[in-house]
């Protein structure tokens, strides 16, 4: 526990360091990366670590971390920089590294954090595809692709990447913070907050499992009244988002800034009616 706390205390330092190191963005340019679709439905990309490689990695939008095997970590000489080495090296875990130049195809991302480990599933994949593709040495995850506007197209077996300036926070650090705070105090309630004033009261009874929520009241002189919403309407979607609970509707309105115009689909007399609402500033 002491070690955990210590690493928590180090967090602000790490963040400051990252900020100081920030460089102005280059002009966004779109680059294409070809990928290899394999029979299990996964796809493989060619990766270089600080100019070393290329290595084969699986590209996984479901992976919040990037993984590299100890083999390529050694080959690319990044093992020495590893932090948070585990006491018991299960699955060959050797800690976390920040790869200065993480290159997928020709697309370069800076300071991509990666875990060094022998993931059993990656190993099984490697054995399966080694003959045809060479060994598979890890997984490209969120810390890489979050930095880009990305498209994935299986019909052309191509991805495109355009830098978008998105700064991804580290998932492990975030999780530790959440867990530590939930251990010392009661977790804060999750509240869905609208971004503007609509002038509506919504309701749904507990045993009502049908789509949508009921409009209970429309306040006079408001955005909802101006849009023609009426008490008794059943709100199905707000700006394309399902509103099947009152909280859902609040979440959906959280994305709609005052003055922005969005469509709202309601069921009225058995028919779907599309209205446009532009919420006002207020709460």
């Amino acid at each position: 526990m002491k070690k955990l706390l210590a690493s928590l205390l180090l967090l602000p330092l790490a963040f400051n360091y990252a900020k100081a190191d920030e460089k102005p963005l280059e002009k966004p340019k779109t680059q294409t990366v070809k990928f290899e679709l394999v029979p299990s439905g996964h796809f493989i990309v060619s990766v270089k670590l600080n100019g070393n490689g290329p290595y084969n990695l699986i590209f996984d939008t479901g992976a919040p971390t990037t993984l590299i095997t100890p083999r390529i970590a050694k080959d690319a000489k990044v093992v020495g920089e590893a932090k948070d080495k585990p006491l018991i090296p299960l699955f060959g875990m050797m800690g976390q590294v920040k790869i200065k130049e993480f290159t997928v195809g020709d697309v370069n991302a800076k300071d991509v954090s990666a875990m060094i480990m022998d993931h059993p599933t990656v190993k099984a994949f490697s054995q399966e595809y080694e003959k045809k593709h060479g060994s598979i040495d890890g997984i490209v995850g969120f810390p890489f692709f979050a930095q880009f506007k990305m498209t994935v197209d299986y019909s052309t077996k191509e991805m495109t990447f355009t830098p978008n300036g998105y700064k991804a926070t580290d998932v492990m650090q975030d999780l530790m913070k959440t867990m530590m705070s939930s251990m010392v105090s009661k977790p804060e309630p999750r509240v869905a907050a609208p971004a503007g004033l609509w002038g509506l009261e919504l309701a749904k009874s507990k045993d009502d499992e049908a789509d949508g929520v009921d409009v209970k009241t429309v306040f006079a002189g408001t955005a909802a009244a101006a849009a023609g919403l009426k008490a008794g309407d059943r709100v199905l979607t707000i700006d394309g988002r399902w509103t099947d609970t009152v909280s859902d509707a609040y979440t959906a309105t959280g994305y709609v800034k005052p003055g922005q115009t969005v469509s709202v689909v309601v069921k009225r007399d058995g028919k779907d009616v599309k209205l446009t609402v532009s919420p006002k500033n207020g709460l």
Partner: protein
Amino acid sequence: MKYLLLFGLLGLVFSPAKADEKKDPPKKATTYEVPYRLTDTKHIHVRVKINGKGPFNFIIDTGAPALIMTETLAKKVGGKTEDGWTTFDKLEIEGGLSIDKPRGVAIDMFQLKGMNSMGLAGVELHGVLGYNVLARYKIEYDFTETKLKWTPVDFKAPDPKRIVDKNGGQGGLEMIGTLTQVLSMIGGLKPNFTVHPRGFLGAEIESKDKELVIKNVLSGSPAEKAGLKVGDRIEEAKGKSLNSSEDLLEAVKKLPEGTSLKLTVKRGEETKDITVELGKGL
């Protein structure tokens, strides 16, 4: 604690042996805007309805071979299982997208079980959308935007081939789901998935030269009951001074219905503290 990260690697599992996917991709080349959210674990979360039931929370996972969900869910929505595949009548993805007769796999993923037992993702996760769904679309991801863009492409996804781990399992990772369930019980961690609507004031506000002026007080609203008037300038909320309407929304954003909010307002030359009982509405 390091094993937590293993939850991230969703769905790099197997897929069932036999299958013959012959569904055409949707013909229209419309682009669908699919709302998504990043979970606390940095998974790309979209909502789906299966056979009209839901919404359920799924993760977009190119590392998974197919539409995968828990057995309980597959049963609940009336999926029909044959040769390892479960077929559904309809899969709807939030944003207006619909797939007829999709096939999926019903299996209890240890990663989802583990994350849900601790509430790690901040939302209860029911399954993943993998290759056999994703391959029908060109998908654009951009985390500076609030929606993904899905455009149907003409691609018939061949059946995913099963990769068999010699030991039959996932190399010892399966125990992690159960392990975290036990650990979270011991540690008293409870998942916290309930979302409350924020409380309602019922006042339209105008931001003028760093002053927040009440422009309209809705009739019958908590603001009216508490005695707020048009022209009042809101200076503080919960004891914090305000420079913009964003400051006010920020101060109030965690206050659910039924909580009270202390506002300091200036009416003419007079300064007043007004406490409002936040109500229902938006």
